[in-house]
């Protein structure tokens, strides 16, 4: 081994140790556990093949959780793409850019629990201000989080409020990278603002849109905190998610580590499938 190589690996060693122990090993250990009947405190675990996976095929609550999680991911994608993009376009033209950017970004610095508690109180069906002002506008008060029709949409609303600032900053950076003269040329040719948005802004933002969608999909499929604080998965199982199901199987009921690991790997497969799909849809030809 050359001296250079030894030096390089000496620098890498602490980080690679951390990475191997707390990322790589758990990934493989989780896969192994998913083929066993491991439980907390069980002295010897047995290899049970695909039994954990086939059991998931019959687990109705798991199906509901998977459906809810997929619904949340798909339903929130458009608002997550569009709201920050609209804000970014407006901020890019208007004044007070830095101030407004900070304001919209601020909720993103809060923890999911803080966000959940704030909205729980705002949305209180009896004394919360949200319903009070809606009543003043003639909309009847309702328990947005206790109604299966509105509970998941309410979680989407709070999440959009929480993360918009993050994507806004990313969009603003993407917009700055688009050469100004493209717009000037388009304006000289008589293109309207709307037309140059479709013909210039959107195509050139495609890599940014791809990043936003993939990041959002990976995050949404792991939805947990909002649900834990706002609804507990209810009403009924209307907002129950995969990670919540996994959390309860592994850490609330019987500590079924094997079964929970199988859920984790199914979730991983679904996330990968969705990400590949997004890449296919949005990558296209981005050379310009």
């Amino acid at each position, binding site marked *: 081994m050359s001296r250079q190589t030894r030096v390089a690996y000496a620098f890498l060693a602490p980080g690679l140790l951390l990475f191997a122990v707390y990322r790589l090993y758990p990934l493989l250990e989780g896969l192994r556990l998913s083929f066993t009947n491991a439980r907390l405190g069980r002295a010897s675990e047995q290899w049970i093949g695909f039994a954990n996976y086939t059991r998931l095929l019959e687990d109705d609550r798991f199906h509901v959780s998977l459906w809810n999680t997929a619904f949340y991911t798909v339903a929130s994608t458009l608002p997550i793409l569009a709201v920050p993009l609209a804000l970014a376009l407006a901020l890019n033209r208007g004044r007070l850019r830095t101030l407004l950017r900070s304001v919209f970004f601020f909720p993103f610095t809060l923890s999911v629990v803080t966000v959940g508690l704030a909205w729980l109180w705002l949305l209180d069906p009896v004394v919360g201000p949200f319903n009070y002002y809606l009543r003043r506008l003639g909309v009847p008060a309702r328990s947005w989080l206790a109604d299966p029709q509105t509970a998941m949409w309410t979680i989407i609303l709070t999440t959009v409020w929480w993360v918009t600032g993050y994507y806004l900053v990313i969009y603003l950076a993407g917009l700055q990278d688009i050469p100004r003269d493209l717009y000037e040329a388009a304006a000289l040719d008589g293109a309207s603002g709307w037309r140059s948005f479709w013909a210039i802004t959107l195509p050139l933002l495609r890599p940014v849109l791809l990043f936003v969608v993939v990041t959002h999909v990976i995050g949404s499929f792991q939805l947990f905190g909002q649900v834990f604080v706002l609804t507990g998965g209810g009403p009924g199982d209307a907002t129950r998610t995969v990670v919540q199901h996994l959390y309860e199987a592994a850490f609330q009921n019987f500590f079924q580590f094997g079964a929970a690991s199988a859920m984790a790997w199914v979730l991983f497969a679904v996330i*990968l499938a969705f990400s590949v799909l997004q890449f296919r849809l949005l990558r296209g030809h981005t050379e310009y």
Partner: protein
Amino acid sequence: MPRGVRTVDRSSVALTVALLALAVLWLSPIAWVVVTSLKPAPDIIRLPPEWIPWPPTGAHYHEVLLGSSRTARIGRAFVNSLVVAMGSVILVLATSAMAAYPLARMRFPGRDLVFVLLVGSLMIPNAVLLVPQYVLTQRLGWLSTYQGLIVPEAAMIFAFGVFLLRQFFVTMPRELEDAALIDGAGPWQVFSRIIIPLSQPVLAALAIFAFRSAWNDFLWPLIAVNKPEMFPLPVALALLRSAYSSESYGPIMAGAALSALPLLVVFVVANRRIVEGVRLSGLKG
């Protein structure tokens, strides 16, 4: 074309006014948290909503910080969160800067493999690692300890940190390094006296990113800590809610406001760094 100019102006003013109104609306949930935390209990549920808590009271803050024995004390949880977040920041900065240096500036067998492995790991959802991570932490005897929170939180950010810092290290001019090497400096001196001091902006961005991530994480501490005196803030707050929700939102909102405080300070002091960090994080796509 005086008329045309005036219309453009007017529409841009209208846009700014609309955005300002939206900004006020956007901040109103946070304002409501703070307002509620400062109101005496009977005023909290009074309708129509009162947006100015007058006269303000510090009773709820006193209760959650010092008085209550019903749940984990928020004061203690605040300290726990600070220890965990700072510890994780230090561990992330040290390990990812050291790893990024050879990846950016040395040639050695396996370099590309290591880098691909690290970048590929950014696609691993944290929730997938939850169970085996718990089993591992239990075997190490680290449940309900600071290291049981610090090390996994740092591991979550490490690969991203390497990616971010490598991007920056690659762009530094080689002459700086060569001059030091001619003067007889070893690789450690080059790293600690040249590379690190010149990378302060990007290191600060990474530090804020890691701090935010560890300060706000909820799921991992929820399962890795089962002693109330070791709860970090998000877990303590979630429990505070079940302890008080039937009586009063006052203490809960005081706890929520306190949890937002450190990042608010960082945000006001280092707004540009945060934005820069987020912008750089977008590059990973």
